Structures are given as C-alpha cells and as structure tokens.
C-alpha cells in the first residue's frame, strides 16, 4: 500500500519550499545585515532537500549513503556544540533538537524510509493487509523505533508551537517581515518534524 501520489508530491514540494526559504534567509540576512541562526537555517536546507527525496521519487538528490554521512556529521557537530555551550540553556535546547533531528534522519536513511516502490497509488483500491493479492510496498526495518520517533516528533511539534510567542500589535508596526522571521524558523521546524513523522508512517505497512 502507498499514499495518494498527489499527497506525497505535495509533501515533497513543501520540503523543497522549506529548503528554498531557508536558503533565501541565509542570503537575505547577509545582504540586509540581519542576524539569523545560521545553524538552524543550514540544517533546514539540508533536511528540506533530504526529506523531499525521502518522500517523493522526483526529488531524489544524493545517494542515501551520502545523506547518512551528512546527518551523522551533523549530529556529531551539534553534540559537540551542546558540550561547548552547556551552560546556555536556550542554546542547549535548540542544539539538542538539531541533534535529535539529525538522529531521526540517520534512522530514516538506515531504516530504508524511501519513496514508494509501487507504480501509481493504491489509494481508493482494495488492498487487504496481510492477505493474498495485497499490493506490497517496501516497508521499513525497525518499525518500533520509527513509531517511537513518530510519537516524539508529534509531541516535539506541539511543544515548539506552544513556545511560539503570540504576535503582538507592536511587533507588526515595527515591520512585520523582520519580526516574523524568528517565528517562521519555528514554523519551518514544525513542518519538517511533521513531514518526517509522515514519511515514517507511510512506510509502516
């Protein structure tokens, strides 16, 4: 079984958009001389491109082994950064989230979370699970770890959303684009987290 093609395409495009937006932030922050969290933006670019390839076949970029190496390196980098900034609680929490994100992606690449192997979609068809004639898609290894990650990702998304400070009228007056920027990073993070959870769930069949 697999998800409707339009849904995976839409999710893939969403990830490409997140990656593109993060690239735009990196470029524009330099051009405009604004402060930005480079680590988050660079991670979002990498995760956006990688996750798009995980969900939709047309967005395939680098080989899985290369992506695995990239995110292992990312996890190590962020772990070292946590060690170095241990006293700063805010930075520590952010870096811990980045490390966890890299770890989830490493799992996804190793557990074979990938675009569907079925030609077309089984959506709207009869495909009895566990019965003869079922249209089988490639499933993942270690699904229990995947499910634990899905639960963790959902609750992390909720926690992130809960910590986003509401937009105040005075924020908008000062220039909504600039004031919205930090919140938009959080929104990107939530979108990424939900897409990663979705990608794992689509392969538990």
């Amino acid at each position: 079984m697999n998800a409707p093609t339009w849904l995976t395409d839409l999710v893939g495009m969403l990830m490409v958009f997140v990656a593109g937006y993060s690239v735009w932030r990196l470029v524009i922050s330099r051009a405009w001389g604004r402060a930005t969290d480079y680590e988050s933006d660079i991670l979002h670019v990498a995760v956006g491109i990688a996750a798009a390839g995980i969900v939709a076949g047309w967005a395939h970029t680098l080989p899985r082994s290369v992506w695995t190496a990239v995110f292992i390196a990312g996890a190590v980098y962020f772990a070292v950064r946590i060690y170095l900034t241990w006293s700063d609680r805010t930075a520590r929490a952010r870096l811990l989230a980045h490390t966890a994100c890299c770890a989830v992606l490493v799992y996804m690449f190793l557990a074979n979370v990938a675009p569907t192997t079925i030609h077309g979609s089984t959506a709207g068809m009869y495909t009895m699970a566990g019965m003869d004639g079922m249209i089988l898609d490639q499933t993942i290894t270690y699904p229990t770890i995947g499910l634990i990650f899905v639960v963790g990702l959902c609750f992390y998304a909720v926690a992130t959303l809960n910590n986003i400070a509401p937009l105040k009228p005075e924020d908008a007056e000062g220039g909504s684009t600039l004031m919205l920027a930090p919140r938009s990073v959080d929104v990107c993070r939530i979108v990424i987290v939900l897409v990663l959870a979705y990608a794992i769930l689509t392969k538990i069949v």
Partner: protein
Amino acid sequence: MLAGLWLLDGMLKLQPYMFTKNFAPMTLGEAGDGAPFWLVDPLDWAKRIVSDHPVGTMVLFALVEIAIGMAIAYRPTARLGLLACLCWVPFLWFFAEGLGGMTTSAAGPLGGAPGASILYGLLAVLLWPTRRSGPGVTSEAVRFVGTRAARIVWVALWGLLAVLSLLPANREPNAVSDVISANTDGAPKGYAWLLNHAASWAEGRGAEISITLAVLLALVAVSVLLPSRRAVRGGIVLAIVLATLLWVFAEGFGMPFMGMATDPDTGPLLAVIAIAFWPSVPAEVSVQEGAAA
C-alpha cells in the same frame, strides 16, 4: 499532552491503509459489531461514504485532527482548538467508534470502552483554560469545572469501567486471553512474546481477572472522595498503572505495528485524565517548604 495526542491521531490517519477501500469495512465496520439497529444504520451510512471516497474523507479527517492539535498547542487559539475538539468528538464517537462499543453486550475497559473520542471530549472540558485559582483549585481537573463536578466525572468514569468489567461477556473464561491474543498480529517479536505469555496465563481466568480489575477500578473511583491527600494520590497512581496495563496488554498500544491504527486508544487518555486530577501542593505548604529549604 492533549494537543500531542490529537496531532498523533491526525498523522496516523494519513497512513496508506486509510486511503484504501478496506479501511471502512475493516475499521468502521467493527464498530457496528453487536450494535443495536438504531446505531447500525448510521454506521453503515458512514462506512459507505468513507468506502466510496476513502481519500477525500480520510484527508479531511486527518486535517481536522491535525488542526485541532495545532490549535490547542498554540496558546492564542487554545480555546478555539478545544471548542473544535468538543464539536468533532460527538461526531467521531458516534460514527467512527459506534459510541465506543457501549451499546454492545461485550463493552468493557479491555475493549476500549467508553471510547477514545469521548475521553478527548472529557479532557477538553477538564483542561479548559481559565485563570481561576485559590484554595479550591486542588488540581488541574477542578480548575474550570470545580471540585464537585470533577469528582462526579472521576467517579462516573472509573465506576463505569468497573461495572463494565463485571458484564457476563467480560467474565467468560477466555474473555481476557482472547483480547490479549488479538494484539499479537504484526507486533514486534519481543512484544508478541510478552503478549503470548500473558494470554496463556490469562486463559481460563477471565472471571478472576475481570472481578479483580473491577475491584481495583472501583477503588480508583472512590479514591478521589477520600479526605486524605495521600489516598487520593494512591488512587491516581493506581489509575495510571491500570491505564498502562490496559494499554499494553488489552489495547496493544493501539495496534500501530501494521499501519492500521487510527489512534493510540484509551490507555494514554485515561492516564492523562488521572494526571489532571493529581492534587497540587497548597500554596501555603509550598511557601513553608521553600522557607525551610
């Protein structure tokens, strides 16, 4: 917690199985098993609609539940989210869960009664955001509805589960072992091993287990009425333990291992309700403790 569970529910509804024509007869069809005629007809109607349009309906269901979760999580829209939850829950409870199986002769805590949806609704009311404080606010659950109403809810919920445990169908010799065995399909090896052992132990002991469970659930129900804070806490801990046992052994974690789970089932919700009743330390006590430290 409530927001996270709603979000998880919504995400689970985006699994490939939900978009197939099998979902409606397999999942919604089960809700009608043993239900009275007045419930079977609307359930069949809902089943037909989902079966004919699985993609459209399931995407809609998923988006509604994801939106509810997100709205509850984001502070400015928390009330709106809870209100949406209260509007969505009756629909879900009736058409998707068949009133949580409460109209069947085999309704019981092991079978997921009174239904996950109604517990979502209950939590939405109990956790409604309010600034009310003072000595009367002894736990999160009483903050909005008040102590008396919260106690009624607690006693009714756990008392109902205790009574349902004693129904003849739940006291059959193999009633408990059958429920446990049903969760082994697709489960990871270690978990299946645990379930198989539990099922073989429970074989022929349906009556003993159901009566013991009923007694423990009744103790939980009355614990909230006791004057001692320690006894209340004991009852809540027992409630959390029972909810966990039900979730692990009777509900199979909501059976997510084959990509067919629509929600994590009632176990986590019962535990969250119990946590909401955890008595907070009175302000005077915490001030005294702070001064002593």
